């Protein structure tokens, strides 16, 4: 079984991220939660916070999210539907 899964992050303005990733950490309503490949089907309410992505080249990436959001994990595919998402630049 592969150890990567597909992640899509969409906002009303654009698709922010769409690629294979190793791990994903999201700010869910009850606290941060980590997702790895082959996770069981899951839905969660996302709140304001940082989304931490580790992509398939093992590079970390941080995306800030504000406002309401929802996550669906299904069949090794995660979809994040966010009101707003901003990639955090290094050093900021």
């Amino acid at each position, binding site marked *: 079984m592969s150890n990567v899964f597909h992640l899509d992050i969409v*906002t*009303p303005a654009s698709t922010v991220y769409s690629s294979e990733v190793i791990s994903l950490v999201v700010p869910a*309503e009850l606290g941060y939660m980590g997702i790895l490949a082959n996770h069981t089907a899951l*839905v*969660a*309410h996302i709140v304001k916070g940082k989304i931490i992505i580790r992509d398939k080249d093992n590079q970390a990436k941080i995306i800030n999210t504000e406002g309401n959001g*929802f996550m*669906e994990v299904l069949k090794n595919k995660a979809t994040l*539907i966010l009101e707003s998402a901003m990639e955090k630049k290094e050093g900021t």
Partner: protein
Amino acid sequence: MAQSLKTVKSRIRSIENIRKITRAMEMVSSSKLKALQKEYSAFAQYYSRMEKMLNDLLASFPSSQNILLKPRLNKQKIILCVVTSDTGLCGSYNNNVIRIAEEFIEKNKDYALSLVAIGKKGLNHFKKSKLVIADTYTELYGHYSYEVAQKLVKFLLHAFLSGAADEVYAAYTNFISASRVKPVIGKVLNVERGDGEAQEYLSEPDIDTILKELVPAYVAMKMKNIILSSFTAENATRVMAMHEATDNAVELLDDLVLVRNKIRQADITRELIEVVSSADAMKG
């Protein structure tokens, strides 16, 4: 030829001006259309994913409860949002929306119907009717504004929850492509359960809490979809209408130039005949 040279010339000038205006408007609308199309297609991606997520969730948790999902058994009051443009010169765009809105009103005349007018043209049309206009949103001029949409959604949700409306519909124009738009009636509230795939989801927190956030967000996005789609369609129709108008002006101009030349030639011929005949008379 009954027309004088002077009137034909002035008509040519005025039609030339009209052609310039319609051509400029066509260009303005087509650049607006491009920008809106981009915005709408990005948004449509988001919206379709959200819709799918909601439908999948509702199929997976058939026992889930949400007040916005619950159909009212004793349906009495309906709100219809009519999305039209603020400005004219966009062909049959407004007429089509108003036509299907009136069909809807006719079909539902047994219920207490009130209207929410988005766009001046719809407002002006329905002002003359006896229907109650609950709220109006005008002077958007084809620009989607977050604040206005938020206000509108708040109003509709409040109306639904307070019992001022048992169902909410919208008459709007669905943008299919730059050359195809379709006026439709869509149901906004209560939210209907669509076809979704049932999955064994875990949910965090529990499903009812998620739905409490997701369903209003979905309604807001549905209204945004309706407004954006209409505005994109408005500009698409305007591009078509203005293109047609420009073509017609060019055609008319060609005809008039021909008429002008004929009149001028006739004048020259008449003057020549006068000169020749008077010269003949002098000789005679």
